[in-house]
């Protein structure tokens, strides 16, 4: 195969094509990463929030999604929780980290895409509520049936 450069019949565009392709591949690979590069600061710490607030801070229901918000606001909120008189579970959770760790968590969470899934319904909660209502209805019906049986016995007498 003749070297491309020595063939005057080939326009420069054709000569550049494989180089451009190679550059694109290199660019793509640099974006994709091989094994991932050094983990982003705060990622491991922030992942401790995901048990309740969803993978990557996107909750699947109930608790608040925490991704893609302002790092400053997140940090202020967490700092306040860590200082105020503890009431809710988050006031205790926030006390588990140093101020610097809270800052790293806030900064990492702010880089994540915001969740479009801020719904507040838990299907299991609904299920238990429905079951409870059904049980109560059954109980009412049993009592009603018992009363009716008693009434009909009295009538027979």
């Amino acid at each position, binding site marked *: 195969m003749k070297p491309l450069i020595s063939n005057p019949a080939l326009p420069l565009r054709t000569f550049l094509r494989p180089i451009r392709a190679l550059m694109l591949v290199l660019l793509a690979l640099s974006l*994709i990463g091989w*094994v991932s590069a050094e*983990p982003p600061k705060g990622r491991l710490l922030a992942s401790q929030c*995901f*048990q309740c607030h969803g993978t990557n801070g996107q909750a699947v229901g109930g608790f608040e999604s925490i991704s893609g918000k302002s790092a400053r606001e997140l940090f202020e909120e967490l700092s306040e929780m860590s200082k105020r008189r503890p009431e809710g*579970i988050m006031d205790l959770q926030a006390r588990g980290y140093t101020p610097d760790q809270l800052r790293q968590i806030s900064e990492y969470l702010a880089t994540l895409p915001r969740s479009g899934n801020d719904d507040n319904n838990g299907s299991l909660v609904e299920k238990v509520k429905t079951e409870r209502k059904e049980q109560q209805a059954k109980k009412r019906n049993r009592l009603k049936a018992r009363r009716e049986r008693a009434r009909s016995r009295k009538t027979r007498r």
Partner: protein
Amino acid sequence: MKANRREFLGMAGMAMAGLGLPRSVKSNTVAPRVLVVGGGFGGATVAKYLRLWGGNIEVTLIERDPSHFSCILSNLVVTGNLQMDDIELGYEALQIRWGVNVVQGEVLQIDPAANELTASVGGSSITYPYDKLVLSPGVEFIEPNGNYDPELTPHAWKAGPQTLLLKQMLSAMGTRQTYLLTIPKSPYRCPPGPYERACGIADYLTKKRNGSRIVVLDANPSIQAEPKNFGNAFNGLYRDVLTYVPNAGILSVDSAAGTIETAAGNFAGDVVNLIPNQRAGKIVTDSGLANDPTGRWATVDPLTYASSAFPDIHILGDSQATGQPKSGHMANAQAKVCADAIIRAFNGEAPDPTPVTASACFSPITSEKASWLTASYQYDPVSKSMKRVDASFAEADQPTSDGMQQMFQWARNIFADSFG
């Protein structure tokens, strides 16, 4: 919680379009291989996060069962408030969304010198080479002395058929009968769990109003978790149906007769819910990895969860000996530390020197109200151990209906963060 057909097809479509696959699956380097044994909260989470964070790592999860039944919420199945479907967690999302190779099989043996594991899969013996092996097999029960039969005196401390068996026994209880519940010696899986179960059974019996009672035989000298909320419930709300006996370690049992001899006297029950003492999962013990001073748990480095015996074998969740509570939530927390450390190791980097693990859980005290318990753990470089941050450790002031709602929200999210 298993993916229905539509969700399954949706996920499959995503995977085929290449959108659902982690980014570096598309790259063509030689992929490091991680084997994960045990598909509970720890194993599922480490497999998922290795794929989420780890670029082109090839992850294979070996699990005995086709799906996982969550111990979290399983006490509510025993009392009939939830069904088994509500606590069944499938592996479809791990396979399709995260590209984990899920193998249903039983591990036969580990060869740490050769970095190989042999498993029985579909009747054949298959050898899997690995760069890193993660063991998350949960706990194994230590059989009590006497004539012990878990089919007659169920523990229901691993959710599944045992949960249903105990549910059936409870619902078959007649009038003026006794339910015996034994609490194992610490450490055991889920510190508040047995007390939560005691409350669930007491609530059930209170509503039955048939003169039946529960006797709680605790091998420990006192309530091991949330002493205020469980103590208040035992001494107040449930005082007419519940008797709590501390220091009642089991000396021997006769499952067929329903009798237990304990350090605090002899007891007989119509239903005997015997939760035995516990140790690391069998594969950990059989592989010589249960090497802490008690010989029951695996000593690991809490920066990586690598075994002190073999650095390429990581052990997390209930089986490890760091002193952190044994629970699904903590297994999830440790799995993330382990996944991060393995990825760093493949990149030639040191582990994160300051990991935190956060623990939280909710316990129903009645069928309407739940309490919570929380604590965080920071790495202490001096003792090279995870130390509880005391300022972060507390139980709820009292059980509330909000707590009950939060419990279901918590469960839904931790199910999804681990298996979804």
